[in-house]
């Protein structure tokens, strides 16, 4: 015991190394935080760009079924069928019309970075078709001066995110549902406001 104490007493780290080590740990924390915060800006293709690869903007593009090794987008549910519509509000407000004759369907709005800004499911619309108006606050104030007749029946989503995409998910319980679901996905619309 005494021997060990003696050895410990002889064991010596200069305070200079300890202080520089603590300083290094502080700089490591700064590096850690700056890497975590800068990762989203350095991703080569943003979700918005990737969604653009499915086809033209402002049309619901039906995604292929989710199969192994050919998933159109990561982390989608294989029990669902999807349609996606990319838009930019610089080209005016957007009206989304969706309905699917299945036990469950849902609609999500995403911003340019692929983050959900608004989402609803078929229960929100009490089983009927959803009519959603997506626009910026400025466009809404212009629209209020001369509102369309059915403005009250629409779900109005005000957003500051100019670019984004809408994802329409429809649950396919079995293959028997597939014809009507693909029909519903194809007939979902994502279009400009009708000109008055």
């Amino acid at each position, binding site marked *: 015991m005494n021997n060990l104490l003696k050895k*410990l007493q002889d064991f010596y780290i200069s305070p200079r190394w300890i202080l*520089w080590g603590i300083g290094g740990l502080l*700089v490591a924390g700064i*590096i850690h935080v700056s890497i975590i915060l800068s*990762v989203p800006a350095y991703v080569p293709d943003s979700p918005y760009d990737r969604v653009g690869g499915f086809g033209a903007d402002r049309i619901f593009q039906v995604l292929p079924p989710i199969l192994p090794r050919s998933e159109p987008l990561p*982390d989608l549910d294989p029990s669902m069928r999807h349609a996606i519509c990319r838009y930019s509000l610089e080209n005016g407000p957007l009206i989304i019309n969706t309905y699917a004759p299945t036990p469950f369907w849902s609609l999500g709005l995403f911003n340019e970075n692929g983050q959900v800004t608004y*989402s609803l499911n078929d229960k929100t619309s009490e089983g009927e078709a959803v009519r959603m108006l997506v626009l910026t606050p400025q466009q809404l104030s212009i629209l209020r001066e001369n509102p369309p007749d059915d403005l009250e029946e629409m779900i109005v989503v005000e957003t500051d995110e100019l670019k984004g995409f809408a994802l329409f*998910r429809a649950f396919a319980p079995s293959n028997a549902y597939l014809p009507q679901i693909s029909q519903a996905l194809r007939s979902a619309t994502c279009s400009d406001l009708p000109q008055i």
Partner: protein
Amino acid sequence: MTHTPHMPLVAVPEPETTQIYDGETSWQKPWPRISPLLYKAPFFSFGPFLFAVCIALIVGIGSAYLSLNRGSPFNALESGVWVAHPYAGTIDSDPYSTAIFARTGRVPLGSGEGIAFYAAFDDSGRALDPQCHYRISGRVPSTRLWTITALNNALELLATDAGRASLHSHGMLMDHTGAFSIEVAPEARPGNWLPTGGNSGLVFAMRLYDIPYTTGAGLSAPVMPAVELVSCK
């Protein structure tokens, strides 16, 4: 270079040295005790500086890399082995979730749509293996629809011989209380069989759609089914 006296790491009381100074008889005063802190040492020296730079780079980059390959530690809902991040992928997500989702490009479920729970371990804490036989039993919170999917470690859908890697609640055998038992194995099993395959890891994704909690206030983890290992080849 000036000499720096070695500071011991362990304080051991020095043996009693009684120094008696008697001005009348002693011819020399005892040497004054000077604090070692008063000795002069250079502030900058190359060795410790290099040490600090190495620590900063290795610890900073390493910890950022590790935390991006794991789930975010913030706002996690945990229920047994199941973990969900309800705010991840939304505009309210924490910086770790934002970085993880940006890096993988995953498409999240919105709060109005549902919530996705993931399990990468069984109840005894071992990582899931797609060649083993697991039993997922219990019940899930009452929802209109839930699905369970077998993914690999990169969260890609498993390629299986059965041609599917998912089950949903509308095609599930349950008893009258809503309890179920899912057999997860690479070979066909009686009952609710969730096929697996490959050898690049196994993660279960359980998506609960239109779950009441997301529309209500407050976060409380629901009771989720148990994942137990039955046998391993």
